[in-house]
């Protein structure tokens, strides 16, 4: 039995997933299983010649899986058997459209096409039945009965025409004739619900008792038994078709089991093996890549550390050279007796970076230069104070404090810084300088001057 993927239309056979779109089709397979079950049930009913029951099951099988061509073909046979050749042809045409190769439907259609007379008869009988139905709906029963009788004579298996004829007879209380039609229908299809209903209805009546209006019919029948020109027994034909179908299905099953399935299994195994091999290779490559990356990271870290160390060392060396250059410069200023520049340069030297020998030179220079620079700065500051250049004076005096001046210079520097602050109206700062002089250098001129200044500021 065929089945197609509802997502992409690819043949899926009995696989749980589609090979084309890789989607899960187990739910489709479940539906197809139901279709199969209905087909087997329909097939059983067909074997027992229960046409109506078979038709119901086969219709369901087709509804659950339209690609179930076996069910569709058998449904066509059921229609054919019950005289509905048009419906049979319709099912076979659909079946052929769905499954183009190895389809019994092709054979059935061909067989019918080879019998044009059969087609004409079927066409006429169906036409007569449809016309009769129309007449009955219009209330014209007599004309309808004529049409139906003609239809039945042309197509004796047309059960619907027989049922309708039986119904007309029942209405006309011609139970004997009705019973004849019903029995014929039940012979063709023992499960026909309409015929069973009519049979039940007619059984209530005493059909053994010939009604007056049936007398004419019965004796004629008793005198000369009306026999159909040719009894068409379709039982063997149906059996032949069913047998052909079973043989075909068995062959397909054998081919599937013996050839296709092992090959497919082998293909799956091969694919699986290849996939596993590829996965292992990939895993190995990933591991190697990981190791390489780790080694590279470690190498880079080591290189980075080395570079950082080299950089730090180079910076240290550069700094040491800079300090030494500054020391040389300071020495040059010292030799030129430019005490302030020499002190400034010395002040900017990082002594910790000097080598032992240079550190000694630095200490000696500092001792030689600082005091002199402080005295020189004090003198400059005092001169500027005298000409009331308080801004520059304060700079010079503050700088003098930095270069470790002698006590005398320090006292004077602090005093004049206080005076500058006073001039600049920074009273608190001025007081700070004066108090410092008074406190740290008592009994000095600067102390008494500072005291006076404080009194003046406090008053």
């Amino acid at each position: 039995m065929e089945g197609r993927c509802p997502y992409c239309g690819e043949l899926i056979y009995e696989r749980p997933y589609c090979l084309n779109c890789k989607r899960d089709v187990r739910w489709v397979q479940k539906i197809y299983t139901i279709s199969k079950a209905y087909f087997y049930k329909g097939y059983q009913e067909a074997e027992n010649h229960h046409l109506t029951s078979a038709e119901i099951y086969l219709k369901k099988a087709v509804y659950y899986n339209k690609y179930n061509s076996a069910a569709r073909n058998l449904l066509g046979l059921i229609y054919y058997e019950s005289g509905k050749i048009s419906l049979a042809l319709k099912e076979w045409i659909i079946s052929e459209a769905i499954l183009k190769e190895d389809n019994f439907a092709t054979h059935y259609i061909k067989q019918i096409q080879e019998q044009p007379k059969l087609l004409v008869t079927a066409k006429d009988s169906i036409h007569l039945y449809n016309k009769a139905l129309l007449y009955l709906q219009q209330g014209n029963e007599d004309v309808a009965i004529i049409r139906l009788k003609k239809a039945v004579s042309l197509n004796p298996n047309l059960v619907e025409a027989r049922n309708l004829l039986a119904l007309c007879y029942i209405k006309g209380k011609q139970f004997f004739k009705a019973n004849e039609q019903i029995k014929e229908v039940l012979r063709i299809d023992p499960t026909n619900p309409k015929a069973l209903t009519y049979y039940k209805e007619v059984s209530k009546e005493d059909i053994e008792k010939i009604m007056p209006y049936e007398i004419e019919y019965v004796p004629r029948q008793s005198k000369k038994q009306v026999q159909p020109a040719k009894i068409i027994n379709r039982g063997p034909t149906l059996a032949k078709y069913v047998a052909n179908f079973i043989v075909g299905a068995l062959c397909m099953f054998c081919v599937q089991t013996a050839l296709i399935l092992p090959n497919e299994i082998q293909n799956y195994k091969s694919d699986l093996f290849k996939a596993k091999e590829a996965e292992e290779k990939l895993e190995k490559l990933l591991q190697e890549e990981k190791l390489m990356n780790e080694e590279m990271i470690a190498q880079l870290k080591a290189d980075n550390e080395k570079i950082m160390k080299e950089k730090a060392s180079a910076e240290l060396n550069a700094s040491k050279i800079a300090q030494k250059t500054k020391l040389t410069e300071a020495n040059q200023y010292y030799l030129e007796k430019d005490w302030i520049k020499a002190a400034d340069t010395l002040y900017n030297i990082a002594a910790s970076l000097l080598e032992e020998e240079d550190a000694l030179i630095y200490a000696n220079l500092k001792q030689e230069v600082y005091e002199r620079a402080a005295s020189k700065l004090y003198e400059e500051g005092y001169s500027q104070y005298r000409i009331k250049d308080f801004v520059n004076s304060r700079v010079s005096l503050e700088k003098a404090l930095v270069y470790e001046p002698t006590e005398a210079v320090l006292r004077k520097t602090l005093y004049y810084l206080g005076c500058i602050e006073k001039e600049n109206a920074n009273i608190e700062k001025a007081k700070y300088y004066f108090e410092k002089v008074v406190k740290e250098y008592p009994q000095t001129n600067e102390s008494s001057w500072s005291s006076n200044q404080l009194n003046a500021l406090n008053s």
Partner: protein
Amino acid sequence: MIDFKKELERYKSILDVEHIEDKIDREDMKDLIDVLKEFNKAEEKHKFGEDQ
């Protein structure tokens, strides 16, 4: 007793033999999976409409 009129309603005309191929419509080619697919499509469309 059989109600003739009601019983008559149970009978339908049979498809004519001529031009059978023209009378095969989409419904004849539809199965449960097609119905489910259509239902799914309709539901998705409905959801899309709600989202908008």
